[in-house]
């Protein structure tokens, strides 16, 4: 039996090759653009330089984009120490590596990706449960070093286990979480209500 032209093997082989090649090229172009847009400290402002941990972080509703966007405020050095960009990078890196080594992603999500057994950490730095701005940093360090004794759970029995996080690692993790909270996530998680901070309006 003769096959009609639109059912021919040859035609569809060519179609498959061309479509795949075309989509791959588009993806590569978009990847160049996106990687440029999410460089830490890049001009788009979507991902902040690591030294942002020297400043206060707010969220403000942007009417035009119709979502809350991060706004960097005045100086508020983490643990009272102003760091250079290099020092800040080193500290955040230490924190990030620790989150890998302890597999935090096995229970938590970061930017919404990971596991669902524990709260999303994208904006944990701004979580109102830390009480007030003044005690937040130290509370976070204390919690990370001993989450069992400092458990909250809000009525649930679920507790974070002790992961043998050292004092140095805990400080570095807090730096990482502070930096993470400044990423412009297009409004995710929606409706997030941050902790009240000095200079809030």
């Amino acid at each position, binding site marked *: 039996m003769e096959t009609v032209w639109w*059912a021919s093997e040859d035609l569809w082989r060519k179609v*498959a090759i061309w479509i795949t090649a075309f989509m791959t090229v588009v993806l590569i172009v978009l990847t160049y653009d996106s990687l440029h847009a999410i460089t830490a400290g890049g001009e788009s402002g979507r991902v902040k330089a690591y030294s942002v941990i020297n400043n206060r972080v707010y969220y403000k509703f942007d009417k035009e984009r119709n979502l809350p966007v991060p706004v960097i405020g005045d100086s508020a050095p983490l643990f009272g120490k102003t760091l250079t960009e290099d020092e800040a990078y080193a500290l955040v890196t230490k924190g990030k*590596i620790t989150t890998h*080594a302890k*597999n935090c992603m096995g229970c938590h999500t970061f*930017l919404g*990706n990971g*596991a669902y057994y524990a709260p999303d950490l994208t904006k944990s730095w701004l979580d109102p449960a830390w009480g007030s701005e003044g005690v937040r940093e130290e509370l976070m360090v204390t919690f990370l070093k001993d989450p069992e004794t400092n458990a909250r759970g809000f009525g649930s*029995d679920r507790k974070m286990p002790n992961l043998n996080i050292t004092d140095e690692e805990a400080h570095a993790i807090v730096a990482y979480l502070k930096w993470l909270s400044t*990423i412009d996530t297009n409004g995710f998680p929606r409706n997030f209500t941050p902790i009240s901070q000095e200079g809030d309006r």
Partner: protein
Amino acid sequence: MSIGTLSFSHLTTGQQLAIKYYSVAVILFAAQVLFGLLAGLQYLRPDFLYEVLDFSVNRMVHVNAMVVWMLYGFMGAIFWLVEEEAGVELVGAKLANLGFWVLTAAVTVVVLVYLFVQIGPGTMESLWFINEGREYIEAPRWADIGIVICLLIFFYNISATFMKGKWSGISGVLVLDLVAVAGLYLAGMFYITNTSVEQYWWWWVIHMWVEATWEVLVGCIMAWGLIKTLGASRKIVTTWLYIEVALMLGSGILGLGHHYFWIGTPEYWFTVGGFFSALEPVPLVAMVVHAVYDSGVHRFKNSNHPALAWFIAHAFGNFFGAGVFGFMHTLPQINLYTHGSQWSSSHGHLAFFGAYATINIAMFYMGIQKWRGDVYMSANIAHSWRWKWALSLLCLGMTGMTIALLISGYEQSFIERALGGATWAAYFEAQQTAWYVQGMVWRQIWGYVFASGLVLLIWDLLTIGKGDTRPMLLPEPAEH
């Protein structure tokens, strides 16, 4: 050797290797389910194994065992069909055997370290030797390198065999696809501090595997399977394969954008990701049409009933798990609320089971049939209730789990996200609502149903065709 008894003499060199790969795959499948049950139980009883085998450890073993058993199954399937498809003996059989043992030794060490060392101090050494802490690709860096070497050996075996023998449409697609599968893994092999960039590349591995390259791979296996079990016409099957590749990669490559809504990447991904991922179900519908049509044309007369049943389960499972449940949360307006909730888990379970567990199981049945000397496996086989019940319990268990998770996910998006403002307190408020908790309870119950189906499946795989001396029913060649 006679029909009905297990003997390696019934098999070609590549097929003997395939049996080894299948065996490890089944063991890891059982491990996956065991650790899934432990993790699921911890949702209900948080004290269970607390600080012994924490949730994160159980979950890591659960999802890693899954990824590895499916890769083992695929490698086995390709070793299974390569010689027939190429018309020559496997090239580099000794090396292939070595590759199997090295890979298996590496996997064993990785799992033992996951279970007994679990975590390390916050240094790069921990990422090199304990775990990399990135969901699905937690394997430490040394193992990544080992895996790539073993994949290269595998690639050599397969491509050299085709080169020595003959090429076909199926093998051409297959070999190109293997290059992409291995190449994409490299995107997951480095450490980056910038989380946005890190997750950008992480999704290149995860999404591009399951929604592009693995789909093409199972398309090849399916094409071969339909020719084998039903006697479908090669020409038509090959044309279908090209159409599916065009549709799958045409939508799946840019569909990647549905993971770039919230990780810091620019807003144009809303449009690109939303649009192209919404098209991803189209090839999955095509696959259902294809499988059902072919089976109908051949009046379901086929050489291997359980295998064909699982091939068809694959077509439907892929459609519902990936196509329907994926589509549900793929538009940014919805994903804003469902992103990273039990909703994702619901889809993840049905999609991985429906698309990839099923077709692997079909190939296991193809394997056991020939291992028993092309024994009869069509209508009226002894103890056929076993494979039918295994199929039913597994599909029912997974469907139940998926719906339970969806209910929890719905409640979570509503209470935690839409109303609660996604804080620590709002998270726990959602976790304790009655609907959410019920969902978790039912997930566990259906999980046990699933596990019982798996026990039955393994029993059936070990015994089906035993002592039956009737030869395999040859499929009738296609009339069209």
